[in-house]
């Protein structure tokens, strides 16, 4: 059996007294993309830096392509890890043009004379050959990010590390770049680790996800698993809108018998799209939020509040009484 492109066991990183990461386990197979989702300060960047070899481990170990690269004693230097890093703020060298920047990793891997033409070819394939002779301060943020991506691609790594590559781009550019990342990575057959605080990006892009909070793993699984069966309220709210209602163990929610999954421990988590307007349950509209593709109503109901999703434009106003229904719910443990 082939070793995973990346595997980490009990990864711990500390800065003096502060523990930035504790006991992080992860595995990424080649061709697979793992999204690391967490709010700022949760340790995403630190995790990527540990895998790239920029920071030492205080505990645990990291293997890339079946080879031990990091543990508290061993640390293979970054240049011998065969990873391609796309930095959050691009990290383009101000004294090099785009083509020189992309040729840099080629030259380092001993491509010599062919480096420049090869780099130019890569820029052409990415459709940015017009940037070849520009310096970073002559490019827009999106252009810089593409060059930064090209530099990582030129390394032909077994593993890509993306540190919030779209964090500073506006929305249209963001989706274009995401498509590009996806296509390039798949055509190279390389594994990827994608750090982000944007749940939408992570759900859309990833084969599997890792939720990080205060340097520890909260949950991991496929996007569907993580979205539909969050382990706690925090994980639920990180991945999308959710309401919480008390449930009677194994039987009913808001007095209605429905199919319940998860641990039978008393809190039912309900995604807006698991509900609809009209039905045997009753509530009072508190707030109406028009989302474009649908409208969300926050209803005050027995036992709390619930967000109900409805197709189309708003048809109720705050204060209106309405019937509603819930098709399913996910039970989570009370802390």
């Amino acid at each position, binding site marked *: 059996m082939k070793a995973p492109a990346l595997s980490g066991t009990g990864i711990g990183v500390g*800065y003096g007294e*502060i523990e*930035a990461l504790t006991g992080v386990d992860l595995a990424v197979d080649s061709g697979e993309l793992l999204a690391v989702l967490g709010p*700022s300060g949760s340790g995403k*960047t*630190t995790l*990527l*830096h540990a895998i*790239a*070899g*920029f*920071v*030492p481990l205080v505990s645990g170990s990291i293997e890339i392509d079946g080879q031990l690269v990091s543990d508290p004693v061993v640390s293979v*230097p*970054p*240049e011998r*890890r065969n*990873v*391609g*890093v796309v*930095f*959050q*703020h691009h*990290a*383009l*060298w*101000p*004294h090099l043009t785009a083509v020189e920047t992309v040729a*840099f*990793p080629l030259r*380092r*891997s001993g491509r010599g004379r062919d480096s420049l033409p090869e780099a130019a070819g890569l820029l052409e394939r990415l459709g940015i050959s017009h940037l070849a002779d520009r310096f970073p301060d002559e490019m827009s943020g999106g252009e810089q990010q593409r060059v930064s991506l090209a*530099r*990582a691609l*030129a*390394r032909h790594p077994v593993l890509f590390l993306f540190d919030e590559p779209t964090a500073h781009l506006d929305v249209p550019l963001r989706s274009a770049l995401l498509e590009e990342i996806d296509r390039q990575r798949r055509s190279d057959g390389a594994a990827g680790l994608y750090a982000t605080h944007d749940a939408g990006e992570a759900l859309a892009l990833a084969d599997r996800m890792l939720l990080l909070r205060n340097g520890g793993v909260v949950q991991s699984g496929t996007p569907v698993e993580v979205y539909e069966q969050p382990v706690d309220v925090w994980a639920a709210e990180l991945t999308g809108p959710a309401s919480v209602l008390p449930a009677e163990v194994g039987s009913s929610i808001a007095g209605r018998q429905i199919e319940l999954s998860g641990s039978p421990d008393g809190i039912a988590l309900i995604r807006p799209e698991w509900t609809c307007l009209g039905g045997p349950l009753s509530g009072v509209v508190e707030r109406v939020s028009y989302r474009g593709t649908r409208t969300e109503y926050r209803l005050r109901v027995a036992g709390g509040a619930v967000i109900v999703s409805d197709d189309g434009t708003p048809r109720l106003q705050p204060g209106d009484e309405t019937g509603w229904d819930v098709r399913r719910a996910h039970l989570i443990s009370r802390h």
Partner: protein
Amino acid sequence: MASRTSVERLGSRGPEALGVLIVVALAAYPVGRLVVEAVGDGVADGLWRGGVGTAALNSLWTSASAASLALLAGAALALLTERFRVPGVSLMRAAIIATLVVPPFVSALSWHATYAPFGLFDDATGVSAAWLEGRVGVVAVIAVNVAPLAYLVVAAGLRSWRVPDLEWAARAAGADRTATLRLVTLPMLRPALAAGWLIGFAASLSSFGVPVVLGTPAGFETLTTRVYRAVAFAAMPDAFEEAVIMALLLAVIALAVALVADARFAVARPAPRQVRSDGRSPRRPPPGGAVGAAWVYLGLTVILPGLGLAVRALTPSVGVSAVPTNWTLGNFTAAFDSRTWEALGRSALLAVAAAVLALAAAGLLVSVRQSSGRGWDGAVLAMFALPGTALALAISLGYGRWLANTAAIILIAYVAKLLALAHRPLAASAAGVDRDLIRAARAAGASARRAWAAVSLPLMRPGLVAGGLLVFLFAVHELTMSSLLHGPGNETLAVVILDYQQLGDPTVTAALAVMLALVVGAAALLLLWLRPRRVRR
């Protein structure tokens, strides 16, 4: 009801005219007089007079060598403190910067007291450096004095890009440590290195205190010491004409260097603000022995000489062994005669007056910039870059007619030279006042004047305090201009110390130098203590 003024008058010409007046009075007019005088004397002929050419060459090569050595030391120290995890790094930074506030001639005296024959080192080990008096000593001590400047410039350069993403990007792209240093760090640092060298060169060129203490006794003359000899002793025929020509030469070289440094490397502009890295970056420990080497350097160049000077001040006379049983306070009592006390009072008064006037002028220039966009930054920088020797001679030519041998002419020179030290912090803190804060005050009902007093002024206070103290710090030990402008009966403290040195009384000189260093050190500590606390975000 808009009873008084409903519309504010915009773009009043008053302050701008005052800005022009300041620059003309302090620099343009005197330097113009210098040029006219020099041309009248025949610049070209003067340059080829034997002594002038030798002095000019000496100035050029000492400055070039000192700047190179200083850059080497400064850049190495900057790499160490900015790129590696150094235990006690703030102490090391303080020790590096400390050299900057030590008056150069005090530094020269302390090296002499430590490493010259009969110095502390000789006393303890029997080894001494006879070469200290002469060209080698001059270069070495200037280099040590200028190294902190190079350090500051290079460290600012290292801090100006995202630490350490750009270097990590190179590592991730397959470059090892040395390739990263060669291909990324050093090329990106090139502007800072060049600027560091040019600033070091300009500072070395205007150095007077070091060559007068270490060069003159050995017959080694630079432009600054030759001008001093010509003016102070009028020892040569046509002495003053020659001095004017040399002063112009100094001014031209220094301004050309400053111009290149400013145009190509943006020395005058503040370094781009560092973008904070989201991931904290633990630094690696430095290569073995580097920290030790840095402390040995600082110990031999700063700490030990300071000790040597203090011991000499306590020793009855040179040649007497410096063991504690021989120590005496006699030198201090001898040093403090009425002339010294008067000079001390005069220096303190001049320094306070210079600080107040420089702050007022700088404040005016800053407000001119806010109203008309013209900041006179270049002119202020040029005045600072002008060697004190040249500036003093120019001001003597410009105002000597009326003010010769008065303290007022010294004060004018101090304000002209040190204006930049008040201007920089003041302009920086003024730029840091967000215009929206003032708009918010106006929107909350404050008049323009009220908003200025309630918002702008408190926010600029750190700049005012820092600027004022810096001017005081440098004015209180100023030697170069004072030695050329003072008359009988209005010597400054530094001039008195130089007199004792030239009369050949090393122990009393040392006592006075220690005392001056204490005054300067106290002001520096105050500056450090009042330094604006870093604002948390």
